């Protein structure tokens, strides 16, 4: 319990001594403590690359944070879901930033964040334009940071058009992870997504544009595979444009060696001023997205924990602490202090071993009990893999599916915060209930009677009985209690029948 408190308290002003004390209270401090199911499934070298990367490992996203620095504003293609003029600090989606940085400013920001945010493990460059097209700035930033904080993982995301010419440099700079956005493998489909690309000093449009982009993307994929750089493919699901086609995309990128495929829902709103937004192109519903993901899940690693973050996001995937680290707040003479990160890593190594064990135990128990019909459970969590957030404070719920195979993370549902300053508001509670459609039970650290009753009226149970347990262990305990109760009823009914 002491360790649990120390892990949670890291977000607050706790001294490193306190963290250290909690750490020293027992257990091992080796980073290889405990075995992991995920580690067993993957070759050792691949696991080493992803185990601390929140975007590549679902397990890691409970513990580790990333930051993006917006140093690469220039882009070489136009997508119908992107409007480069748009910029708002309240928006959370790719391509959106509040503050563009020079490589020198980015270094200062990274040092400030790495000193203050203990979970920090990955630095990514995701634009807001294209990191490979705006290469000089991307490269200068990575060079500066690698010199000051050598243990930070570097990654970048790109549309792929300018990737082939930089692959060797990427390899030499120890960039282990590249994310490529691939929305099509058929230029006919591509022509409906990309109005133009800029390539070899010319703006190409229509089928020519999509054909060039496709060829360069495939070339890039193969070059990365040859150099053993892990590739995550992001695909934007656009209903009526490429939703069915993404099955083919999945097949092709898998063949070409992509490590992970991430299907993201199109974000579309007239207020964003994008072509799709202005023309009424809708995004997929949660059920449509899940149906496609389920269809593709056989034999492919799918990423389901993506939060489609901003090009200047800071923190764990579900949170954004970017506003705490604007250039105005970052000191001019900032230096890097590794103490918090190092202490945190030691604590996590231990917690993680326990978490993996809890997961395995949960899966074994479900295999034993047997689950007839899959059940959807929503969790309120602040991170660390535990049920540890007040229902009313949740900005999103993590969603798990219980099947005979065990407990599996399947995604998240974003909600407007229901409780602000202790006062629940009915209007936003309706929104929360809507977002929780299909969910059987919500597990959280605390919930009031009022929202609990409202959820109940909507057919959703809620419980804070499993507060602070591991997510998988809490779900298992809840299911076992329910199962036992159901058996009890059957038993009583049988006993009654026998008496009669």
């Amino acid at each position, binding site marked *: 319990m002491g360790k649990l408190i120390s892990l949670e308290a890291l977000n607050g002003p706790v001294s490193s001594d306190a963290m250290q004390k909690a750490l020293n209270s027992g257990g091992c401090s080796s980073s290889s403590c405990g075995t992991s199911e995920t580690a067993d499934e993957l070759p050792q070298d691949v696991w080493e690359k992803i185990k601390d990367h929140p975007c590549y490992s679902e397990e890691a996203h409970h513990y580790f944070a990333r930051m993006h620095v917006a140093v690469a*504003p*220039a*882009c*070489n293609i*136009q997508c119908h879901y992107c409007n*480069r*003029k748009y910029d708002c600090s309240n928006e959370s989606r790719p391509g959106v930033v509040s503050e*563009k940085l020079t490589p020198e400013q980015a270094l200062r920001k990274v040092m400030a964040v790495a000193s203050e945010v203990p979970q920090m493990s990955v630095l990514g460059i995701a634009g807001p*334009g294209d990191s490979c*097209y*705006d290469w*000089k700035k991307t490269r200068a930033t990575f060079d500066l940071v690698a010199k000051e904080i050598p243990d930070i993982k570097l990654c970048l995301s790109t549309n792929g058009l300018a990737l082939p010419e930089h692959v060797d440099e990427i390899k030499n700079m120890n960039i282990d992870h590249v994310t490529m956005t691939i929305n099509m493998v058929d230029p006919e489909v591509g022509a409906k997504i990309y109005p133009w690309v*800029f390539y070899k*000093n*010319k*703006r190409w449009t229509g089928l020519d544009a999509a054909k060039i982009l496709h060829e360069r993307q495939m070339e890039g994929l193969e070059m990365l595979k040859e150099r053993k750089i892990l590739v995550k493919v992001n695909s934007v699901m656009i209903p009526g444009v490429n939703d069915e086609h993404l099955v083919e995309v999945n097949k092709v990128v898998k063949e070409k060696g992509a490590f992970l495929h991430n299907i993201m829902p199109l974000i579309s709103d007239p207020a964003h001023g994008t072509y799709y937004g202005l023309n009424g192109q809708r995004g997929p519903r949660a059920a449509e997205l899940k149906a496609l993901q389920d269809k593709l899940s056989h034999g492919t690693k799918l990423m389901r924990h993506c939060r489609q973050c901003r090009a200047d996001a800071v923190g764990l995937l579900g949170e954004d602490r970017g506003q705490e680290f604007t250039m105005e707040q970052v000191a001019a003479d900032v230096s890097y202090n590794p103490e918090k990160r190092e202490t945190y890593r030691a604590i996590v190594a231990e917690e993680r071993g326990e978490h993996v064990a809890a997961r395995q135990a949960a899966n074994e128990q479900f295999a034993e009990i047997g689950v007839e019909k899959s059940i959807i459970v929503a969790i309120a969590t602040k991170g660390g893999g535990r049920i540890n957030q007040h229902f009313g404070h949740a900005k999103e719920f993590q969603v798990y599916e219980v099947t005979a195979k065990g407990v599996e993370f399947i995604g998240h549902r974003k909600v407007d915060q229901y409780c602000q300053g202790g006062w629940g508001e009915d209007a936003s509670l309706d929104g929360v209930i809507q977002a929780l459609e299909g969910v059987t039970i919500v597990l959280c650290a605390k919930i009031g009677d009022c929202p609990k009753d409202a959820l109940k009226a909507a057919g959703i149970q809620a419980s804070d009985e499993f507060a602070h347990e591991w997510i998988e262990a809490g779900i298992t305990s809840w299911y076992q209690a329910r199962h036992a109760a159901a058996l009890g009823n059957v038993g009583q009914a049988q006993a009654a029948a026998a008496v009669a």
Partner: protein
Amino acid sequence: MAYKIVASQCTVCGACEFECPNAAISLKNEMYIIDPKKCTECEGHFETPQCAAVCPVPKTCIPAAPG
């Protein structure tokens, strides 16, 4: 003849700066401007002016009115 950037629409992405074959584009007071003395509209270099071809915002990198 030269091109100019409509400041109110420019996103300051800088793509035009590094595509310009004449180094005619530079950042002044956090805004990119084209030096008309250096701009050749890319004649002799490319088929079309590079700044306009790469600019992500329509009608933002345009021919300067003959003055």
